[in-house]
């Protein structure tokens, strides 16, 4: 390995997550969803406590599908996701989400999740209005208040902007 000059500035990078914890947001939330559900097919929103997932909640969203199967409604959006949306989408339909935003791509496959009744994770890329390429990974998880029918979706997404010098 090449020797670096003594005056090179060294910055310690500290992990935000405890050692050994899964780093990927979608898998952490999926694991939490499985824990909430236990032996049941779907967990209930009544058991979902944001204070128990402080490391994920800012990247989470909740969709209400009861009565809104064709066009679910946002009931909650984490602050980090909201920042990417550029507008308050709470109590708005998914079709109101601005195109080419993290929120819009994260809920684009909600119909498939409702049809299959299982968690689905999608990733990909989109371009912001300023032309910046964004890589994202998201997940939507079915929830049920009666244990049988899906009443809503819990979702999470995070992303990374790719600048020109990072193109692979």
């Amino acid at each position: 390995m090449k020797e670096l000059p003594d005056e090179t500035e060294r910055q310690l990078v500290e992990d935000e997550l405890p050692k050994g914890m899964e780093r990927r947001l979608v898998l952490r939330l999926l694991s939490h969803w499985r824990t909430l559900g236990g032996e049941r097919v779907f967990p209930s929103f009544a058991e979902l406590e944001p204070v128990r997932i402080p490391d994920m909640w800012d990247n989470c969203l909740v969709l209400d599908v009861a009565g809104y199967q064709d066009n679910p409604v946002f009931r909650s959006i984490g602050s980090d996701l909201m920042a990417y949306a550029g507008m308050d989408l709470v109590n708005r339909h998914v079709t109101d989400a601005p195109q080419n935003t993290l929120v819009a791509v994260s809920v684009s496959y909600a119909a498939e999740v409702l049809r299959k009744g299982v968690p689905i994770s999608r990733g990909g890329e989109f371009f912001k209005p300023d032309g910046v390429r964004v890589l994202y990974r998201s997940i939507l998880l079915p929830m049920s208040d009666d244990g049988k029918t899906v009443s809503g979706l819990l979702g999470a997404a995070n992303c990374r902007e790719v600048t020109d010098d990072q193109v692979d």
Partner: protein
Amino acid sequence: MRAFEIHTFRGGKWKIDSVFDDRDLAVFEAERMETSRRFAGIRVVEENFDESTQKITTRTIFRGAPAVEPKATPNAKTGKGPATGKAARGKADPRRTAKRKKTGKKKKSSLGFLIGILVLSICIGIASIITLRVLSGSI
């Protein structure tokens, strides 16, 4: 279009657990689920949809090691094993059926062994009595 489905074996059949569009993520999650030992079987199935032919091809890209099946607990009232419905009998695991037959044969052989010991003991007893009478008669 490609999708990677995690399937779990529960209640005698395979069911879709979750779907990913990333192979490494699906396999990683399947391996993690396997360590929990909650499922009798786990597999990852790759689905490819060919838009030109409108056909879907599937192949299993990961198959976890089967977990140990929980033992059936006896019914409290009858003392027998749990009742199984017609559907369950139709889908019975042949390995379990073979095991039940083997257990039956083993019970029969041990019973025969005990009967044999009993008969032998009776014969020895009778022989001893006769011998004693003959000896007492001769003395």
